[in-house]
């Protein structure tokens, strides 16, 4: 039963719009679990490419954020704009570039 409130929190954190600060825990979970379904739970790649810091170093936070929000047409990378806010995409871009601590 303990896990139910945590799950609700995670969902509202990831999907909510216009709230103050991105929920770091929920977003880190989203990255590893859901981005991870293509890029691997450790982000070293699967059907989708490796997205660890060394591999994506050519990106700026801005360019990576736009890939996250709008996807890459013609590839399986989907636009996440329907599910996350700009602030959340920005947090994810920086998290990916810095690497999970």
């Amino acid at each position, binding site marked *: 039963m303990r896990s139910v409130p945590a*799950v609700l929190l995670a969902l509202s954190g990831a999907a909510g719009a216009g709230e103050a600060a991105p929920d770091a825990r929920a977003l880190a979970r989203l990255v590893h679990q*859901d981005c991870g379904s293509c890029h691997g739970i450790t982000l070293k790649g*699967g059907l989708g490419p490796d997205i660890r810091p060394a591999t994506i170093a050519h990106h700026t936070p801005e360019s990576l954020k736009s890939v996250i929000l709008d996807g890459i047409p013609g590839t399986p990378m989907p636009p996440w704009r329907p599910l996350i806010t700009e602030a959340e995409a920005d947090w994810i871009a920086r998290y990916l570039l810095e690497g999970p601590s």
Partner: protein
Amino acid sequence: MRRLAAAAILAAALAGGAARADEIRATGDLGLIVERETGSLLLVDQSERAVISRIEGLGDLSHASLVYSPDQRFAYVFGRDGGLTKVDIVTQSVAARVIQAGNSIGGAISDDGRLVAVSNYEPGGVRVFDAETLNMVADIPTGSKTIGLVDAPGRRFVFTLWDEGETWIADLSGETPAITRIGGIGEYPYDALITGDGRTYVAGLFGEDGLTALDLWAETPRPVRVLPGYGRGDEPLPVYKMPHLEGWALAGGEFVLPAVGHHEVLWVDAATFAETGRTRTHGQPVFAMSRPDGRQVWVNFAHPLNDRVQIIDTLTKKVVHELTPGAAVLHMEFTARGHEVWVSVRDAGKVVIYDTRTFEALAEIEAVSPSGIFFTARAHRTGL
């Protein structure tokens, strides 16, 4: 050594008495649940609806799957990190383990149980191992990510190249592998299935609306496009999780297949591949799995609509029931005769067991980020 070991066993038997019937655990109703983040497996008993033990040390088990030896004693576990682990479920321990590649995606066991094949993304290709020793017996590089690896009768493995849209049939019945390459499968095949009779191989396509079927009984199998342009006129939705075709449904002579980028499952006549219907679903389906008798199809969904399961009646093709087990329903596994189904709910940290007729939740099992559930009955089915 052999004599010494035998003597030791005899001594132990004399000292402690032979194993009694109530200490022997037959494996026919056991199963393994993958705990993806902790690299562990739960050994479970279907009849008791209970965990027997946890087996640890299997590496990165995100997207892990496994197959069973014909005697239902050993499981071969395919980890994302390229690890191939042979688990002895009688002694509840790791019997052997090799890191055979950098990044892998699944495997299969040959019809005779002698060979285990692993499908790899990095380096792209398939590697085949002796099921007894885990020594590599064949290396089949493809230069591409490989998906949809299945076993086919006659000591063959069939798999497909994600980048090239080619299916390869590797025949390992002789001294060296004989490879047949079939092009024109389509754009970005993401997964494939083989029917239980080992005749038909169907690859699902991500890059275009449709699937491609091959008749493996034909002298030269030729690709046949199934449901070309099934989403025509409908803007495809973003896909946040690739569907799976393993665990595909064949219900009453029809395939039930997840549509990519649409909130639908598609019904296809298994003999003619003509469309026979569509069912609107709650979200984009990930698994559409037939209850073993074919009367129901259970469907789970991609992120972010992945908190529920819908049950479709195969006679009416209508959703007849909906369950909300919790956040991130990842997998479902039926008991061999279909009276119960086990459903893994990753974010709730549990597996829920349902009666498939009353839909009553019968029990819950605690698990750490559970994903795949695999019952030993798979040992005797082609393609699982």
